[in-house]
């Protein structure tokens, strides 16, 4: 005869009391398990959702990046190469450079093999008075596009102005009533109007174009230019720094300015799209966190109520069990079994109840919480440990009170 056997026999004998206790523990463990599993499942689902969204964003951004790269590659953008000492405030205010650099730079660039640069337009510009007509004009000396040594010859983006010819902006030829073929005097030199541009709505409307050499001579800047305009360059805006560094090493004393605002806008749009995607992920995370917080709040109310209710029911069931067994307790004490061993009968009963109820509740809660969720050892310990603790806590006081009763009184009463 052992305590284990005695406890097992008693459980088998008084099934109903034990099953009620077991049911109570199972229910409590199932609710605890369900709460914890729901939170764990929620966390897993959150991870999945966020991970999916991040992956989706990553793919979308990669596609966007690729699209922009293709668009930019096809579209190209414009760069302005100006002397390094050019005051940029003046450049932006006047819309043309006022410092000078050697005209030979354009040949250097055209023959250096730099593949991102496609069309090179050297020019010299200066705002001046057109003395013959008392008009302020922008004199632009140009030699047309300089062919690149490494590229196939293409139709030039801009044709040179022939010597002795002049091109007038819209406002000039309109207000002075000049037309193609007219002979005019500009700053003391004779020119024939070869072209009159239509309205552009910018400084071009008050610009005069002549051959570069003539302009250099007129401005007393032989062999010098203000700027080289590089058109349809093929690189992404975020590679501008690299291109700037490269051009800087080819043409020392120059600086590079990006003039394609549409591309910058598109890059900005892409940046914003990325930011919005990240904000959407953050918002999803926030929503999931809020949902989790609400679940935790609900659990914070539900669990103590369930645990207290279950604890009280266990205590009641053990109290009735102890009452039913008072004669047994008395006789065991009369035949010399000490109180620790008798107490261990009840502890063992509670332990069995807690273990079976805890495991059953864990399984039931896990199934109800997620359909199928394989509980980890931490969850197992949390739920089964709580169930065992609950059973022991509920059993302790009535059991202790029962075995502390005077055995003589118990035996005499019966």
């Amino acid at each position, binding site marked *: *005869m*052992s*305590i284990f*056997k*005695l406890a097992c*026999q*008693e459980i*088998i*004998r*008084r099934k109903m009391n034990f099953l009620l206790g077991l049911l109570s523990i199972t229910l409590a463990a199932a609710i605890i398990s369900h709460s914890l599993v729901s939170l764990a499942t929620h966390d897993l689902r959150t991870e999945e959702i966020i991970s999916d969204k991040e992956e989706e964003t990553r793919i979308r951004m990669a596609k966007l990046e690729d699209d922009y790269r293709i668009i930019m590659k096809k579209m190209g953008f414009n760069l302005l190469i100006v002397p390094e000492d050019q005051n940029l405030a003046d450049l932006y205010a006047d819309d043309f450079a006022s410092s000078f650099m050697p005209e030979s730079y354009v040949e250097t660039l055209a023959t250096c093999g730099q593949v991102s640069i496609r069309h090179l337009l050297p020019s010299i510009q200066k705002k001046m008075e057109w003395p013959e007509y008392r008009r302020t004009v922008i004199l632009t000396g140009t030699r047309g596009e300089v062919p690149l040594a490494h590229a196939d010859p293409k139709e030039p983006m801009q044709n040179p102005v022939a010597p002795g010819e002049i091109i007038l902006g819209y406002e000039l030829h309109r207000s002075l009533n000049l037309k193609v073929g007219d002979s005019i005097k500009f700053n003391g030199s004779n020119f024939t109007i070869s072209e009159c541009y239509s309205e552009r709505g910018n400084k071009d409307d008050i610009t005069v174009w002549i051959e570069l050499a003539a302009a250099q001579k007129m401005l007393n800047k032989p062999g010098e230019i203000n700027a080289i305009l590089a058109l349809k360059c093929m690189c992404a805006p975020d590679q501008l720094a690299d291109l700037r560094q490269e051009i800087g090493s080819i043409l020392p004393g120059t600086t590079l300015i990006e003039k394609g605002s549409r591309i910058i806008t598109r890059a900005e749009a892409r940046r914003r799209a990325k930011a919005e995607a990240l904000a959407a992920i953050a918002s999803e995370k926030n929503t999931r966190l809020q949902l989790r917080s609400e679940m935790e709040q609900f659990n914070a109310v539900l669990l103590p109520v369930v645990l207290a209710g279950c604890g009280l029911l266990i205590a009641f069931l053990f109290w009735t069990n102890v009452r039913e067994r008072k*004669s*047994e307790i*008395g*006789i*065991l*004490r*009369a*035949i*010399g*079994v*000490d*109180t*620790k*061993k008798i107490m261990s009968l009840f502890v063992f009963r509670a332990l069995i109840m807690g273990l079976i109820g805890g495991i059953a509740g864990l399984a039931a809660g896990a199934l109800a919480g997620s359909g199928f969720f394989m509980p980890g050892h931490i969850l197992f310990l949390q739920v089964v440990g709580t169930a065992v603790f609950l059973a022991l806590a509920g059993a302790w006081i009535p059991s202790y009170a029962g075995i502390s009763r*005077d*055995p*003589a009184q118990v*035996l*005499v009463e*019966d």
Partner: protein
Amino acid sequence: MSNSEVLVLDRLYKSYVKENQRIKAVENFSIKLNPGEITAVCGPSGCGKTSLLLLAGGLLTPDSGRVLADGTNIVELNPNGKARWRSTYCGFVFQQYHLVPYLTVYENMLASELALGHDKNRRKKADDLCDLLGLNDRKKHFPGELSAGEKQRVALARALFTTPAVLLADEITGNLDDPNTDLVLKLLRDYSGRGGSVLLVTHDSKAADAADRIVFMEKGKMISG
């Protein structure tokens, strides 16, 4: 205490407070129990017989007086010490049997193993007791399936299982018919014949007649014996 005495109750006093009144259950009671002797304590209901029996077994603590067994005053032992002493030295049998309802006859007999631990020799003793008490065919039965006489025999077997020096029996024939009473008294005589000492509390004259010595009690006091 001489070497021949199994148990000595020395000037025992025990009183209870009931409804603000002190009731003297046992008053200045002294007796020596000898081996091989059945001592019957008789008296009317409420005279303190059962209290005396519980004092003798260390289940009640007297207000004063001593219970000496092998030179040890049982009264001074702590509850677990008393339990250990009971497990080896004395056996209890009650009128209400107090069998554990979910254990079989055989398991009830072995209940003392909870205190003493498992021992193969004792198992043989249990088998012998089953033979002796005519319980062989009832070994696997539960108390609920037994007659009153069988239950009392099981209770007696459980008490004798540890071969106690003294058997404390409280109205053990109270619920039995004549044949069963005769059988139980015969078993007590057999036990005392083997050197055991019996303190039998009874108001059954037939049981008292089976005793070697009869002590009368009234209002907690020994009035003759």
